[in-house]
């Protein structure tokens, strides 16, 4: 079972599978240990154009439906979730501009991405996680410019991005209504990156602090209007969440694949362990969960493509897929027995990779608040 995708996406899926099998899956193992950002692997991926999958057709993108793209991203996640996160986080950073940016901004960021640049979405701050409105970064209008100061943390692609979409307070007195969104290109004086996180999982992705010290940008780099930053950020996350669900489902799929191939190989009591109905039921449950998660991802994406509402569906997809990715990864380890706990084997990494998906782009507790608000009403 898989996503129902167009013929051209099926064709591309074969290519992505082939590329990831040879260039991502095995090579990423080494970087999972070292925590180093595998620049060479990413450069090959940029040649393939993976970072530009979400660029709209009118700006030079491939013009695939969201479900088509999901099938490709899942394939990347099966190979390595950190790799897929890097690619997808670039799509995340495109969204504020695509949602609210000017024509010139859209053209510029799409151009950067098509050239092989990544984006970084900068919302979280040390004191503003789930409470994103508590951000302390400021943007002060000064003639034709804004001057930004503050510190963002846990920023995916922070150290490797070509452009940043940054939230900052333009009017502290108004709370979330005083937040605005800005586009900052890499190399702008005053923008630097701080500590790189030594993470539990998705270790092939780059996560670090982004520091803004008197960063002066043209006023035309304001995305949308002043005071709309929080709303743009929430709309961005509404869409982006489903993609995290997509990667989480990919982690779960890898768990199933590994568990089945090991279960057929491992002989105990004279038979492959997968012959035990106890393990067959485990695999069936893993499949039930993964396929359900995948189809929830597809449903949320189809709603986006059709222009329908998707806030709740996106939250369900992200929340459910990441919860079951943890369960499926854990069961995959169980099927491997003692070997599953060893770093020599591929499944312990899945559990480490899966955990973050319950946390970032809105914790699963926040997702449940979103879902509850959607059905109970305020």
């Amino acid at each position, binding site marked *: 079972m898989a996503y129902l995708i167009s013929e051209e996406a099926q064709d*591309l899926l*074969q*290519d992505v599978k*082939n590329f990831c099998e040879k*260039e991502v899956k095995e090579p990423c193992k080494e970087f999972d240990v070292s925590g180093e950002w595998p620049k060479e692997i990413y450069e090959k991926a940029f040649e393939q154009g993976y970072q530009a999958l979400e660029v709209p057709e009118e700006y030079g993108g491939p013009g695939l439906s969201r479900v088509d793209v999901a099938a490709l991203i899942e394939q990347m996640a099966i190979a390595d979730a950190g790799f897929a996160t890097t690619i997808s986080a670039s799509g995340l950073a495109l969204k504020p501009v695509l949602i609210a940016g000017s024509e010139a901004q859209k053209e510029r960021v799409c151009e950067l991405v098509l050239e092989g640049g990544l984006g970084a979405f900068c919302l979280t701050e040390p004191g503003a996680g789930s409470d994103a409105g508590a951000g302390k970064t400021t943007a002060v209008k000064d003639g034709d410019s804004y001057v930004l100061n503050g510190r963002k943390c846990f920023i995916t692609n922070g150290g490797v991005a070509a452009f940043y979409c940054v939230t900052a307070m333009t009017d502290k007195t108004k709370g979330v209504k005083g937040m605005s969104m800005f586009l900052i290109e890499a190399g702008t004086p005053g923008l630097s990156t701080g500590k790189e996180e030594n993470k539990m999982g998705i270790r092939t992705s780059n996560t670090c602090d982004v520091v803004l010290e008197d960063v002066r940008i043209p006023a035309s780099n304001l995305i949308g209007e002043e005071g709309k930053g929080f709303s743009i950020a929430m709309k961005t996350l509404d869409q982006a969440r489903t993609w995290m669900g997509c990667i989480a489902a990919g982690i779960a799929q890898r768990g199933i694949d590994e568990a089945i191939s090991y279960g057929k190989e491992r002989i105990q009591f004279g038979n492959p362990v997968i012959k035990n109905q106890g393990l067959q039921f485990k695999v069936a449950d893993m499949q039930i969960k993964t396929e359900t998660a995948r189809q929830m991802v597809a449903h949320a994406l189809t709603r986006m493509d059709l222009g329908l509402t998707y806030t709740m569906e996106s939250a369900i997809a992200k929340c459910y897929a990441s919860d079951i990715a943890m369960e499926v990864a854990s069961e995959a380890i169980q099927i491997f027995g003692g070997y599953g706990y060893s770093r020599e084997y591929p499944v312990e990494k899945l559990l480490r990779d899966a955990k973050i998906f319950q946390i970032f782009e809105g914790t699963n507790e926040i997702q449940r608040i979103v879902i509850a608000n959607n059905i109970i009403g305020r």
Partner: protein
Amino acid sequence: MELLVCIKQVPDDSVEISLDPVSKTPALQGVTPVVNAFDTYALEMAARLKEAHGGEITVVSIGGEDVKNSLKNCLAVGADNAYLVKEEAAFSHDPAGIAKTLKKAIGEIEKDRGKPFDLIFCGKESTDYASSQVGLFLGEESSLPVAANVISVEPVEGGIKLKQETEEGYRVMEAALPCVVTIQKPNYDPRYPTIKSKMAARKKEITELSPIENLESQFKVLQILEPPKRAAGVKIKGDNIQEAVTEAMSVMTKARIF
């Protein structure tokens, strides 16, 4: 330079294939069709030649509608034009028949494009039936020089310089153009199709050509056999090294290894 690469679609060679117990023919259901690996090396070599010295690359294949997908994959990794000789029964032809069909196709393509080919590439063999003969027959049919097992080509004054892999090492030679080369794996890998090149390739037209009617084979396949299953080994259990070695030597002597 005008370059032609002859392409064969084969079952994915990374999958182990067994015989269908009833029909006694290879069971290919569910095996992904791919471009023959040696043809992908040939195409990559042609693409590098084109990038360095200019020209155009045409690919041609023989087969049914599904082969168009393989040709589109070629268009995504360097080929400019693609032609398909529409022949559902391509698999029933012997290598000489395939070469005759290719010769006819080449004449038609040259007429269609208004210019002759300078260099014709074939893989040195296919990964399915591995006859290694099509390129050689094609040279013979077309009265062109042929060089087999080539790992590099480079244009020189009045022709091309070729590096051929032999059992002992390499042979470097020059040939006048036009000529046919069959390609051995060079020391690089074929490029991956990019998302963009694949999307563009899917939109390109593939020109269909007609096969030779009532093409006769010079030989026919009587039976296809699976390679024998590896027999169980002999376990030698001597009490000491001397005994074990003596027994091992006697087993090998009986098997006429020496």
